[in-house]
């Protein structure tokens, strides 16, 4: 038993399931607050967790466009589900963040910046698609013209324990988006659940240290084979989205009648953007005391489906649902590539699951392939 030493970075090891509890304890001892999946209100949500028992062991999700139910899963697995309504962006890019306070003193305004909060989180069970979603938010909020200080402060503290998917939902399409079901980079540790233990890939020094005092063993060819088989099953369970040539397809169909057809179903409720792990749009809210001596500016999540998102003096550049859904879809699959060099969708399926009318982007994109607009 190699209990005293720790494995090197990029090693694959095998541990018994109970060893995860030890990893949790090591993380806590290192100062991390654990955040992971747990069952609440009939869904798997992300929240603080303390122990292995908090995980939704034995649960899985029945997901379809516009439908989500928690149901008992096979074999009492710890990670036999995929993704619930929450995503990690609520911890890295919280729904509300104070930017600054303005104070009037002797008739002059003083602007006091809010100190970015930086809780030290360990994210437990990050799905490969969500890992990629974090990387996409990094592109928008860290690697843009100026890094966002609030996101940066949180992001640099995070420990990422990924969980590869041995089980996919009917709404998943990570294979098409090349984001899963196996995490390739960007994690500290990545586990694959086997019937009797976890295969763990070590992604960083900190990750390796968190295996301290666990009974890990180097993975054998047999372990690696079993893990690959599980992931291949997840790959086959998915829906598909053809991604070649997406920008041209969408840009050349900006006036296609299909947009009217989606607009007739879409409620412009914005659920899809709130559930989406890559959406990063925000607005600001101003508040003040009644005497006009103190004012606060707070940044909050926004959605391109809201009525005043594109308000300009005397009008709105996207007044119709048709124009808003078109913005959503063309941003995800076309302009994101122009802006950040990669598609803005990771195939997690949250948008269609939590869409009250079950609008499914894989089907909407397909409609343009099936009958491209005739050139005018």
């Amino acid at each position: 038993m190699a209990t005293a030493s720790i494995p090197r970075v990029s090693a694959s090891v095998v541990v018994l399931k109970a060893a995860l509890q030890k990893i949790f304890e090591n993380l806590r001892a290192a100062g991390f607050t654990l955040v992971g999946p747990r069952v609440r209100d009939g869904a798997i949500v992300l929240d603080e967790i303390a122990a292995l028992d908090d995980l939704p062991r034995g649960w899985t999700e029945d997901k379809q466009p516009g439908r989500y139910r928690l149901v008992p899963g096979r074999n009492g697995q710890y990670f036999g589900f995929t993704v619930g309504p929450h995503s990690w962006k609520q911890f890295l890019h919280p729904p509300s963040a104070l930017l600054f306070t303005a104070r009037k003193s002797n008739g002059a305004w003083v602007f006091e910046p809010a100190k970015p909060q930086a809780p030290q989180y360990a994210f437990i069970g990050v799905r490969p698609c969500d890992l990629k979603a974090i990387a996409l938010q990094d592109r928008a909020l860290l690697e843009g013209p100026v890094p966002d200080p609030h996101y940066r402060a949180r992001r640099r503290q995070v420990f990422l324990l990924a969980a590869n998917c041995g089980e996919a939902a009917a709404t998943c399409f990570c294979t098409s988006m090349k984001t899963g079901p196996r995490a390739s980079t960007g994690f500290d540790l990545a586990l694959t659940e086997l019937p009797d233990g976890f295969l763990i890939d070590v992604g960083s020094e900190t990750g390796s240290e968190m295996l301290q005092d666990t009974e890990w063993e180097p993975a054998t060819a047999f372990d690696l084979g079993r893990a690959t088989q599980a992931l291949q099953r997840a790959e086959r369970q998915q829906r598909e989205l053809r991604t070649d040539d997406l920008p041209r397809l969408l840009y050349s169909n900006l006036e296609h009648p299909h947009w009217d057809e989606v607009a007739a179903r879409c409620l412009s409720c914005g659920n899809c953007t709130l559930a989406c792990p890559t959406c990063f749009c925000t607005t600001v809210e101003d508040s003040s005391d009644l005497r006009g001596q103190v004012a606060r500016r707070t940044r909050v999540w926004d959605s391109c489906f809201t009525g005043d998102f594109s308000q300009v003096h005397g009008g709105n550049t996207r007044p119709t649902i048709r124009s808003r859904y078109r913005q959503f879809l063309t941003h995800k699959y076309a302009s994101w590539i122009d802006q950040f060099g990669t598609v803005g969708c990771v195939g997690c399926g949250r948008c269609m699951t939590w869409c009250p009318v079950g609008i499914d982007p894989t089907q909407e994109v397909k409609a343009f392939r099936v009958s491209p607009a005739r050139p005018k």
Partner: protein
Amino acid sequence: MSQAIHIPAMTPAVLPMLPQPAVIRAIKPESYGVATYTLAFQDPALAAAYRFLPGQFNMLYLPAFGEVAISLSSDPAQPQALGHSIRFGGSVTQGIGRLKVGDMLGLRGPYGSHWPLDLAAGKDVLMVAGGIGLAPLRPALLTILKERSKYGRVLLLYGGRTPQDLLYTDEFEAWQKAGVELHVSVDWADENWKGQVGVIPMLFYRIRLEYKKCLVLTCGPEIMMRFVIYEALARNIPRESIYISMERNMKCAVGFCGHCQYGPNFICQQGPILNFATVEPFFGKESF
């Protein structure tokens, strides 16, 4: 820090959405519902370091009201006196309208792209402005007039709804003396108006120039720019030689709120000044 990702170092723009206190040094009423505010940073070091290029904008913050994007309308050679010509429209701009000389607001900037004056050297420059759209063109005009001989003909086609809506009318004579061919028109005239009546694109019929060699800089309502482009293309002005200034809702001006997206562009980053050839696939598409 744990897993191996690249976290960029913070630059001095540590808090990109934090305004800096600025004082109103002067207020000049320009036209019905528009006044030019001259602002200066309260901090002398910031004031001394500030520079901007023609066409760029600042974010002006009125505590408890909100923040708005306003173009710089003054001479870039005098970066200590920052002119902002503001139309009193909604809550923030009307709130600014109630401030007096000596009052303060928040200012951050400059942001955005600028008019391509470097490309204009040796060419004829055709500026076409509608209403308050002349504000972001004024710094370009003043810069050109400083080194007038570097450019060919300089034309300004300017239009407003009524004679009362025209900005900087007190400067027109000086501009003309300095070598600007000025053509003004209004949509609705009163009995005192001696000039042209009609929409701005009509002014194209009053001028003649070497269209293949000129550079068009236009700013105004989108529908106006659409007709300007139509007239320009009809005269064989290359689409690459046409620059427009686009307006979209803006909250952050630094590329992470998402509001100002215009197809592949963030108007606060790649814009507001955009080359027409690069946005042609989207320009004029309904509600895009």
